[in-house]
């Protein structure tokens, strides 16, 4: 692992055995993600995209193999260490329903900083700055149900970015958005990537998203099938 790498995964295997029948979601992946990248993981349904992202983010533990994130071996961390590590180093954007419905947009974005123990004044300042950056500062006081799908995902992006993580992981961020909104959301994420240098790794099977990725990783049957820049595709 070099200083330039955000993620290094070595021989990662993930097998589920919930119903007594083993399901091999990931079948031995070696992968390195460099700082500042804007990479999409693509593949058909059931190819293991979400599982791979979960393992890389420390949301799930690999059955075999090791995952290094920002120089730390996360596959061996305790639950509490992992929790704190994710809070401080990783931003998350999920498909949908990932905002807390009873909190306003501002409170949703503020939440992670609350966990970090950042003082109220600084929290408010940073929340408003990031909401302005994602273009929804005027909706700060609204509840998620009062926002459109695109606006909700912008709040999710703001929440992922506000804690200044080294990596943002997005699982199908445009899955519930129309193509125009998806394009605008990806453009905004790409702009944030360029402005802040934060690494973005997202799974998708949306062509609009793929076109905006700087690198693409193809997963098939739990294995990396190919790696290519968009130009190569």
């Amino acid at each position, binding site marked *: 692992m070099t200083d330039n790498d955000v993620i290094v995964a070595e021989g990662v295997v993930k097998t589920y055995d919930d119903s007594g029948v083993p399901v091999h979601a990931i079948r031995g992946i070696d992968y390195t993600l460099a700082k500042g990248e804007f990479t999409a993981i693509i593949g058909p349904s059931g190819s293991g995209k*979400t*599982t791979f992202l*979960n393992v890389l*983010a420390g*949301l*799930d533990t690999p059955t075999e193999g090791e995952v290094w994130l920002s120089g730390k071996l996360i596959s061996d961390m305790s*639950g*509490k260490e992992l*929790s*704190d590590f*994710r*809070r*401080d180093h990783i931003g*998350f954007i*999920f*498909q949908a*329903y*990932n905002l*807390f*419905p*009873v*909190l306003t947009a501002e409170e949703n974005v503020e*939440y*992670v900083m*609350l*966990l*970090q*123990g950042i003082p109220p004044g600084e929290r408010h300042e940073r929340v408003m700055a990031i909401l302005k950056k994602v273009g929804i500062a005027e909706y700060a006081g609204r509840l998620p149900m009062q926002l459109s799908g695109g606006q909700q995902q912008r709040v999710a992006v703001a*929440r992922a970015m506000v804690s200044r993580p080294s990596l943002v992981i997005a699982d199908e961020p445009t899955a519930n958005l129309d193509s125009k909104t998806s394009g605008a959301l990806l453009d905004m994420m790409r702009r944030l990537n360029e402005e802040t240098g934060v690494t973005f790794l997202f799974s998708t099977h949306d062509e609009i998203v793929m076109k905006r990725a700087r690198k693409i990783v193809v997963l098939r049957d739990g294995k990396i099938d190919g790696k290519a820049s968009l130009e190569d595709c």
Partner: protein
Amino acid sequence: MFIRLVKFAWKIIWRNGRRTVITGLAVGLGLGSMMFTEALMQGMAAHMIQTTTESWMGDAQIHRDGFPDTRNINLTINRLDSMLSMLDGDSTVSSFTARILSPASVTSTTELKPVTLIGVDSKTDPEVTMLEAAVDTGSYLSGESTEIIIGYKLADDLNAGLGDVIIITVAQADSGLSSSMFFVSGICRFGSDNLDRYSAFVNLTTAGVMLGIPGEIHEIAVQFPQAEMGADISLGFRRKFTAFSNTALGWPELAPQVGSMLSMVNISMAIMAAILFGLVVFGIVNSLFMSVFERMYEFGVMKAVGTRTGTISTMVILEAFWIAVISTVMGSAIGLLIIWITTGTGISFGEIEVSGIIFDKPIYPVLRLSRIWLYPLFTLILTTAAGIYPGIHAGRLNPAEAMRKSL
């Protein structure tokens, strides 16, 4: 952070307001009914004590040692004058009256029945007992040596009415027999089988002469400002008047069946409270688990962004706390309202007899001040504690699994 969690939990419980209100109402009804039942039981207990002490017994009694067990008519109060002057000077005593008690037989023109002949001081007795008030036909004792008051059941048994002649026969202190003729001057109705069927009341002097113990007595019935003082063994009264071979006893020792009934009431209440609070706990656990399962994805997201296990558990417990607060407020309001209404109207059970005590008047619930906060506090603590299990479950969810299973 904790304050924010408290606010967060408050907002969460109103996401499904209907469920929160129904859960709160269910717990609240339990609490309210518990408070009301307890107050009703206290009302019944107060009625029992009142019936026992005010009708006849008094709050405490003084006897010569051994008299309560043997009923030996020779065991009269020792150093009576000293005892009476001590009672006169005792500030804890409201009033007292002297009595003579003896087994006797009563004969009418057609029947013969065993009774207890009771000689009462017609001047002081009304300050302690309900005898005067219990006379519903005829008149109270005026001091005439031939007058006698009998209960309505005894009157029925003897086929005797007002003005009829009856003969009382007693064994005297010197082992002789004494019979006297009396005219029924009053018929009383106490609501107690013992007094209405097996007692006959004459003047104290008359009884003393019949028994051959003039100027002596067997029993002093004492009344305190509050009946509870009769049960208070820490009160100096018992020490002070257990003297000169005499013993002072409170109503719990004099009427142990009442004490047993009160203990049974307390045990019943404890069992009922345990069952009710158990149901409350399971109800809350069920409701919170439903809420937790509905929010699996949300908990997954919370954990993903770095919320610690303890924080999530605390939040669920705080949700339980808020439901507890709502339940407690609703339950206390329901309970106090029902108690307030029934305290005014009373609850009539018709005429039932429990342990020889007849409940023929409405029972008025009695709310003990300690219960205004004790039961609600129990509800608050137990309902909040019911959040611990679902809270731990929610806190331990694996974020990836929680999101995977809820999609």
